[in-house]
């Protein structure tokens, strides 16, 4: 049974499994409650559905158990299991008692690791079996439960392997979960702070939650992909491979570990200075920034000198705290100083770069040959360009923006103030290996109009750009359409006509007022008059030249602009007066615009897309984006066409969702004709003027 070449010790494995059985029994119990019991409760709501719908609901529930439950359970029980089975490393007594056993390091590692993994996989298996038995009548239950078993076990494997790896680096049971927590969010936190801070000071740099290093913070990466719109199980397989690598590395490290480090916060001497420096950097970026914002908030311009000082204070505190924890002594001042000096120097360099940009971040533009595509965002609709000629135009415009940065560079303190005649534009370059390079600008100043004209006329409305906005990966055929919504600004009369009413007042009373025809018919002439008549002048807003006589909150105020319509209706039915108001100077059915919602079925939406929108995209103004106000107001109709499509991937069972939004223009012949057939009249934004609903 035992030899020099043994890689596994069953005795140790068995004992370790049985010692920590409460842990994995708890895990099993929780999963039984979540999966078979939870699924049963969930399916009660679709009890009368047909088998196919039941299977679909069941599948959706089980997959959610993977995406949410599997992730949370993996994160929590991964570390708990590692803490349990590797606890022998953290006290001298147990460490000696284990290390003197006739078991080689490799065999000890494999046996201990397996004892923390196998029971949990068995718990998953038991849960899956119970689920299969409990839901035997559901079509494909074995495949669904099998998929849950595989994916949940792989997620657990990753977090457990990560905890095992970290367990080899530390010699302290308290340090293990702390380091595990730090490892899990270190990269994302670091990137968020560095990018967020840099974007405060460097022209064009932006941070909108797009993480380059999120793959190094697994919970975030799992959540990003598994909880996002485009779910992919590949992330689980990739991390499972990473788990194998971590376990191999863990085994190597365990072989080199000195057992006398039991109780030490850091088990390897070489990692001690690294840990202190990392703690210092973390302190500078974390504690320092918190102090900075707490103590400097509301002082107007954020000073880089103050930022640097607070970062150094944070670094100082954390460097010394880390050194104290590692040395188990309060007398660490002299030992910590070199590490503090290093972290202070890094903080200084960071602030210096924010000030003078010695790294050239602001002026950096990727070379045209390295760019595979560029996405222009923040201009209403995102535009993707791949044509080298168009890419060249974008980089050319980017150069012009940078050349004019002096006139438009935002100062920190005016970040939240309105800048006259300004436009937000983001350029997202995709480089080789799917790396992205993003810059965001607030285009303002004397050159703003020229830059936006170039962007509008030659870039975002180029043929490639317009056509790129129509492309969908899920075909908008009737069976894929899940939701459709068309909203158009039309006059009250047009709305009434399109809805089959002859009287606009009747339409508005019913649709907007919520009155039934009977209620309207029973209204006294006085009350009906109150709803559309002069009373509005007495009680409501926005009447040029008139005051609010009789309106208690605004006794003496006058207004200069007509904006909305109003109904006033005193509720006399229950004896107490209450009001429904929708304000206007007076009712004018040809001047008052309303949001007219069109209800189309999926076949009509599909036809609108293929027969009208696509041809209008190819030859016409539709699909173009208007950045300059005069162009927008003259061409665009105040409304939108929106629909969502989805399709189930047969291989993975994952539903892919996609949405499409476009804006009708007054010159779109086919789309305009399609809408006109349904009584819809398109008005340019300029005609609607300040009453527009969709364009601000």
């Amino acid at each position: 049974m035992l030899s020099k070449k043994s890689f596994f010790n069953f005795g140790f494995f068995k004992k370790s499994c049985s010692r920590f059985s409460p842990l994995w029994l708890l895990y099993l119990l929780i999963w039984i409650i979540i999966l078979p019991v939870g699924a049963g409760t969930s399916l009660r709501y679709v009890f009368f559905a047909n088998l196919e719908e039941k299977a679909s609901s069941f599948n959706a529930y089980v997959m959610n158990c993977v995406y949410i439950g599997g992730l949370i359970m993996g994160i929590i029980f991964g570390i708990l299991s590692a803490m349990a089975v590797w606890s022998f490393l953290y006290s001298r007594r147990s460490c000696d008692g284990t290390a003197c056993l006739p078991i080689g390091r490799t065999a000890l590692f494999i046996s201990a690791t397996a004892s923390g993994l196998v029971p949990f996989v068995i718990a998953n298996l038991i849960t899956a079996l119970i689920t299969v038995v409990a839901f035997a009548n559901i079509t494909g239950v074995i495949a669904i439960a099998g998929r849950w078993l595989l994916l949940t076990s792989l997620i657990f494997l990753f977090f457990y392997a990560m905890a095992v790896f970290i367990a080899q680096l530390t010699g302290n049971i308290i340090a293990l979960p702390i380091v595990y927590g730090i490892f899990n969010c270190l990269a994302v936190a670091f990137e968020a702070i560095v990018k967020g801070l840099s974007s405060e000071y460097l022209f064009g740099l932006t941070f909108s939650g797009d993480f380059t290093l999120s793959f190094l913070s697994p919970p975030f990466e799992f959540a990003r992909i598994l909880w996002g719109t485009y779910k992919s199980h590949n992330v689980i397989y990739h991390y499972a491979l990473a788990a194998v690598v971590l376990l191999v590395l863990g085994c190597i490290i365990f072989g080199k570990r000195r057992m006398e480090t039991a109780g030490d916060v850091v088990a390897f001497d070489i990692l001690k200075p690294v840990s202190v420096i990392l703690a210092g950097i973390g302190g500078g970026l974390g504690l320092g920034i918190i102090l900075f914002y707490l103590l400097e908030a509301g002082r107007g311009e954020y000073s880089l000198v103050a930022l640097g000082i607070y970062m150094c204070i944070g670094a100082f505190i954390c460097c010394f705290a880390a050194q104290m924890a590692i040395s188990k002594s309060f007398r660490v001042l002299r030992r910590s100083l070199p590490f503090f000096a290093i972290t202070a120097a890094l903080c200084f360099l960071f602030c210096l770069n924010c000030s003078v940009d010695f790294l050239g971040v602001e002026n950096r533009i990727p070379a045209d040959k390295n760019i595979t595509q560029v996405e222009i965002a923040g201009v209403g609709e995102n535009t993707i360009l791949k044509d080298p000629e168009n890419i060249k135009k974008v980089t050319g415009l980017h150069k012009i923006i940078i050349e004019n940065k002096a006139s438009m560079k935002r100062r920190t303190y005016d970040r939240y103030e309105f800048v006259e005649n300004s436009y937000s534009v983001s350029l997202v370059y995709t480089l080789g290996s799917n790396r992205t390079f993003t810059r965001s600008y607030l285009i303002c100043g004397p050159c703003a109009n020229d830059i936006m004209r170039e962007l509008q006329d030659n870039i975002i409305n180029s043929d490639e750009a317009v056509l790129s906005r129509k492309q969908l990966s899920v075909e908008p055929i009737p069976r894929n359409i899940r939701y459709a919504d068309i909203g158009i600004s039309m006059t009250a009369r047009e709305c009434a006509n399109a809805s089959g009413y002859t009287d606009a007042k009747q339409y508005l009373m019913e649709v907007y007022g919520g009155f039934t025809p009977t209620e309207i018919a029973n209204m006294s002439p006085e009350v009906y008059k109150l709803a559309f008549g002069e009373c509005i002048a007495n009680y409501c807003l926005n009447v040029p030249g008139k005051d609010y006589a009789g309106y208690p909150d605004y006794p003496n105020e006058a207004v200069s602009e007509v904006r909305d319509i109003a109904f006033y209706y005193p509720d006399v039915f229950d004896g107490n007066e209450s009001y429904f108001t929708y304000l206007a100077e007076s009712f004018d059915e040809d001047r008052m615009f309303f949001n007219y919602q069109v209800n189309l079925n999926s076949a009509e939406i599909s036809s609108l897309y293929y027969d009208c929108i696509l041809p209008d995209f190819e030859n016409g103004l539709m699909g173009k984006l208007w950045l300059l106000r005069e162009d927008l107001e003259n061409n665009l109709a105040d409304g939108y066409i929106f629909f969502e499509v989805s399709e189930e991937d047969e291989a993975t069972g994952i539903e892919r969702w996609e949405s499409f939004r476009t804006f009708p223009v007054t010159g779109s012949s086919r789309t305009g004709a399609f809408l006109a057939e349904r009584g819809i009249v398109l008005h340019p934004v300029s005609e609607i003027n300040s009453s527009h609903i969709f364009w601000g």
Partner: protein
Amino acid sequence: MIEVKNLSKSFEGFKALDGLSITVPKGSVYGLVGPNGSGKSTLIRHIMGIYRPDGGEILVDGKPVYENPEVKGRLGYIPDDIFYFTQANIMDMMKYYSSVYPSFSRERFDKLSEVFRLDPKKPIRKMSKGMQKQCAFHLCMSLCPDYVILDEPVDGLDPVMRRQVWSILSADVAEHGTTVLVSSHNLRELEDVCDRVGIIDKGSVILERSLLELQDNMCKIQAVFPEGSVIPPELEVLKEESTGKLRTLIMRGNASEIEDKLSLLEPVYMEALPLSLEEIFVYELGGADYAVKEIVL
């Protein structure tokens, strides 16, 4: 045979073992003595393959111990701080050790149960210190080890149980040729059981000899010399005390040779007394700057 050759170990710059070498002959009972912090437990942990040496080597029957399960399977170990699982009773630990040690003998375990008479259902953590030691002996001897490594083994045991334990160990040594390495501060006890002793201090071996050689190398003389007598300078006096005319001399060398030389001074009374191991330890370490300080408070 256990051979420790030129063993070195440092902990964060502190040299715990500094080129230490000892040899424990097969079938012997080797006593390891030394002051607190001299490196005894560190040496034992190296011998058990727990610590990896910075330098030097440890061989058991010519084979290295570190990362050698085959050799470690022949070693039984009772540390000063005994390890057991928190909830475990002796039966749990027996099952555990029997699954890990191929040499574990259930038959021997049952036989020893009659000697130790421990409650098999009582968690070890709830036992007294002495009972825990008994438990450790019970389990260790059930491994049928070729080598027994003991670190302060009888600390906490009552006198009867001490004798019992030593008698079991002695029987094993006699019957199976078991080798015992024992570290203890109870020198009186070591004196009774050890046939070889190593004294270590500051991570090095000061001396390593058989007990007989050790006792032969130092002696205690009580004598009354005529007025004005001077001890011959070639005799090394480690300590001298006087009570009236009676002088007590601790001297390095063979007792009969010293007596011959002192008899030339024509003492009125002279007697050579045997030195205990404790006295040897004290006087040897006195030379290594570890003498008992005479402090007046």
